[in-house]
Structure formats: structure tokens, C-alpha cells
């Protein structure tokens, strides 16, 4: 999968939240987006996911333009802001509802991802009874369960304990090995440095720096 952003901007109520960003992202890579609160990380992810329309510029995925040729990337899993699920259903049932739309996975795979995120026993509890950390884990499970080509994780380590953080790193590594394009937004320097191959620094909606870790490693 290849994603190109060509001078993409987004203005919301006269505020420029993303300002002329151009990027090229490819599969088999983990791209980190780093920035302080309000720098535009989440907005950038929403633009890539096709959830919001760019005010200017274009987002092209595998040669097809979002909002023109396609509405959304064909194969995508995401966790953006709060993990959002249905309160009156269990974690398992929430994933099952989502899985039943495309019908590409069965109950076994759902149990597998619940286990991978540490919710093997909590899967049957109602979502409204989940703690914040459990909700976050379920959000990650939803993002990876269909083995999508594109995975967007916005602050995936929020509310997670140290085991949870390690779990996220392991999941990201595995998805990268599978060949997915993983984009992770995080304000935690250590976490993102460990996970990402490339790091994009955002400030006030503008890319201020791009670091290709592979090049740094090669140079070193």
C-alpha cells in the first residue's frame, strides 16, 4: 500500500489545523507522528482515514484519491481518540458486530485478538463495565482484527500499564512484519522511538521535521 498526501490542508472554523502537508508512506513501515497536544496528529490521521475532507490538497491511496475515487481506504483499522463502542454489548459482541460487516473473520480470530490485547477473560463483560485501559485494549483489538493493510493508532498507549505498552509495541512489530502500513501518533518520545521506522514531527499542523531512522542507523 502506498499513501501520498499532496499539500493537504484542513481549515475548521477559520482555524488551520493542518497546513500544506505532503507525505509519502509505504507498506512494511511504521511511521510515527510526534507532536504536542493540539499539533494536528489526530486530524492528520482522520484525513488519511477519509473521515474528514481536506480543505485543499489530496490524499491518494494506491493511486486512488480519497473523496473522489474512493470514500475510504479499502483495508483499514483504526483507533482514533477514545475507543468508541456500544455500552450495552460485551467487548466480544462489539467486535463481532464490526466483523459481521465484511465477514472476513470468524469468532476464532476475535478470540485471538482479544487474547493478544489481554482481554481474553474480559471479552464477555459489558463494555460499560470496562476500565479506561480495557477500553483502549479493545480499541486496539478492533483495529487489528481483520489484518488490514493500513493501521492507524492514535495515542495507543493511553491509559495502559507497562505490560500494555509492551503489548502495543509487540502488536505494531508483528503488523509491520505482516506487511501492513502502520501509522502511530504518540507524544511519548521513548515509545515512538522504539516503534517507528520514520518519525514525522508536527507542530501547529505543519511538518517541521522528518527523521528516517533507517538512514540514521545506516549512517551510524
Amino acid at each position, binding site marked *: 500500500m502506498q499513501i501520498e498526501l499532496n499539500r493537504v490542508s484542513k481549515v475548521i472554523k477559520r482555524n488551520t489545523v493542518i497546513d500544506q502537508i505532503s507525505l509519502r508512506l509505504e507498506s512494511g513501515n511504521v511511521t510515527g507522528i510526534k507532536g504536542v497536544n493540539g499539533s494536528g496528529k489526530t486530524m492528520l490521521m482522520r484525513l488519511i482515514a477519509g473521515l*474528514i475532507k481536506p480543505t485543499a490538497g489530496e490524499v491518494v491511496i494506491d493511486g486512488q484519491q480519497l473523496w473522489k475515487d474512493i470514500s475510504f481506504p479499502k483495508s483499514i483499522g483504526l483507533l482514533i481518540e477514545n475507543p*468508541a463502542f*456500544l455500552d450495552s454489548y460485551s467487548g466480544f459482541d462489539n467486535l463481532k458486530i464490526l466483523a459481521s460487516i465484511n465477514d472476513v473473520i470468524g469468532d476464532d480470530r476475535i478470540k485471538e485478538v482479544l487474547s493478544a490485547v489481554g482481554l481474553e477473560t474480559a471479552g464477555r463483560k459489558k463494555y460499560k463495565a470496562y476500565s479506561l485501559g480495557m477500553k483502549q485494549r479493545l480499541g486496539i483489538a*478492533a483495529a487489528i482484527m481483520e489484518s488490514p493493510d493500513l493501521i492507524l493508532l492514535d495515542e495507543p498507549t493511553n491509559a495502559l500499564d507497562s505490560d500494555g505498552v509492551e503489548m502495543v509495541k509487540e502488536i505494531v512489530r508483528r503488523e509491520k512484519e505482516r506487511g501492513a502500513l502502520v501509522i502511530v501518533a504518540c507524544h511519548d518520545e521513548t515509545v515512538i522511538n522504539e516503534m517507528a521506522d520514520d518519525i514525522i514531527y508536527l507542530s501547529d499542523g505543519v511538518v517541521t521535521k522528518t527523521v528516517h531512522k533507517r538512514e540514521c542507523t545506516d549512517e551510524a
Partner: protein
Amino acid sequence: MKLIKIEMRKALQGKPFLISLVIGVTIAVLGAVFAILQEYDIWHAWEKIINADGTMNSNPLLAVSSLFRVWLGGNVDSVYTMVFYYFLPLLAALPYSWSLRSELKSGFVKHMVLKCGRLRYYFAKFSAAFLTGAVTVFIPLVINYIIVACFVPARMPDPGDVIYHAVYRDFLFSKLFYTAPLLFDIVFMLLDALFAGVWASFVLSLAFFGLNKFVILIGSYICLLFHQYITRVIVAYRFFIELSPFDFLRAYQSGSPPNGLVVAATLLVIFGAGVVVTVVRGTHDDVF
């Protein structure tokens, strides 16, 4: 279809649907009991009035006992009929019309639109709201009809009893009432269900305006009440056209005679508004 099934399952398994159905069925059952007791009173009154030789000293002007006069949709005297029809829009919207607002607010909508696309998802919701709204209203009407039919004879209506039926010559489908009254009642049940579905889906579409659940469910209902007041005071008594759904959905004339074109136009306008809002806002709005 799959999406609609998913949404229907969510709607029918939800507590609001159950609450709405329980309220509707309670009104329907109480209405049936009231109607049956009303008819028993009339039968007992006849026994007292008619002499041994079959004559009467005076005409008590009692209504002729008939299922078609006393079921929930056709009972002129019943407070339960009034309560049911005034509750109808709320009963229709309560099960699922709030769900889009809830999912837009929580962010769950992100998951769904990414998997199946905006329009498909919104229309699945639209359809589910329509169907649950229609079912929530249809079931109580049918239950009431069946209960009343078990006790009150289905005597063919006579135009001479028009003051009891309140189905006058220029009433909608009046000919059907006096020739095939069962079909007439079924038509009105379906009309009520159709309106309920249309209203529920319209109310669902209001979620795109960022209004909270209370405004969507209750605010729209209060607007409908004011609409009835205005149409009753200004339109009905001047032009003798019934514009208010609270009146034209009943199987008898409670205000001015309902006009088929007006009823159809009302349904189309409300349905059309819901569709237009869903298409325009659904395809263009950002999903946060």
C-alpha cells in the same frame, strides 16, 4: 441488507424498543378492556330498556355494538385512543431514532463508516429506525384489535349509525368502511405504522444537526404538538382540511375530514426531508 440486519438486531435488542413496545401494548390492552366494558354496559342497558314484549318505552340512542367502532383506532369515546395517538410519534422515535446521535457523539460511527461507507451505514440506520418505528406502533394496534374482536361482534357498520362511527361520507376511504370494514381498519393500521416509520427515520436524520438526544426526540415532538394547534386553529376551521397527524391517523373523523392527498403529501414531505438531510449531510459531513 446485512447492515440493515445488524442495525435491526441492535434496535430490537435494545431496552428503548422494549420500553416503547410495553408502553404501546399497555395502552392497547387498557383500551381493549375499556372498549369491552363499554360494550358490556351497552348490552346490559339494552336488557333494561327492552320490555318483555320486545318494545321500548323510549329510544335510548345507544351506539350499535361493533368491533369496528370500538377498536383502538376507531373509538371516538375512548381516552386510550386519544393517549395512544398523542403518544404515537414518541413511541415511534423512542426505540432507535436516538441511536445515530449517540453513535456520532461516542465516535462509534467511525468504525462503521470505514467498514461499509457513509451512505450505506446511514441508510441502514434510517431503515432500521423506520422499521422499528413502524413495528412499535403496529403491534399494539393489532393486539388491541385481536383482544376486542374476541369479545365484541364484528357487526357491519351502517351509514345510519354514522354519528357513532364518525366515518362520514367525505372521510378517507369511507366507502371501504361501509363495504369492507376489516380492510378499512387494516389500511389505517398500516397508515399509522407508515407514519410512525417515516417520523422515526426523520427524527433520526436530525442527528446530523448536532442536536442532543432530547432536542431530537422531544423537541421534534413538541414541534408536532404546536403544528397541531396551529393547523387546528388556523387551517382546519377555515379550509376544512385536516393537516395534523394526531387527527388524520385515526380511523374516524376527530377534526376535519382527512384528505388522501394531504396525508400522502405529509408523509412524502417528512420522509423526503429525512432522506435529503441524510444524503446531503451524511455524504458531506466530517466524521469526528
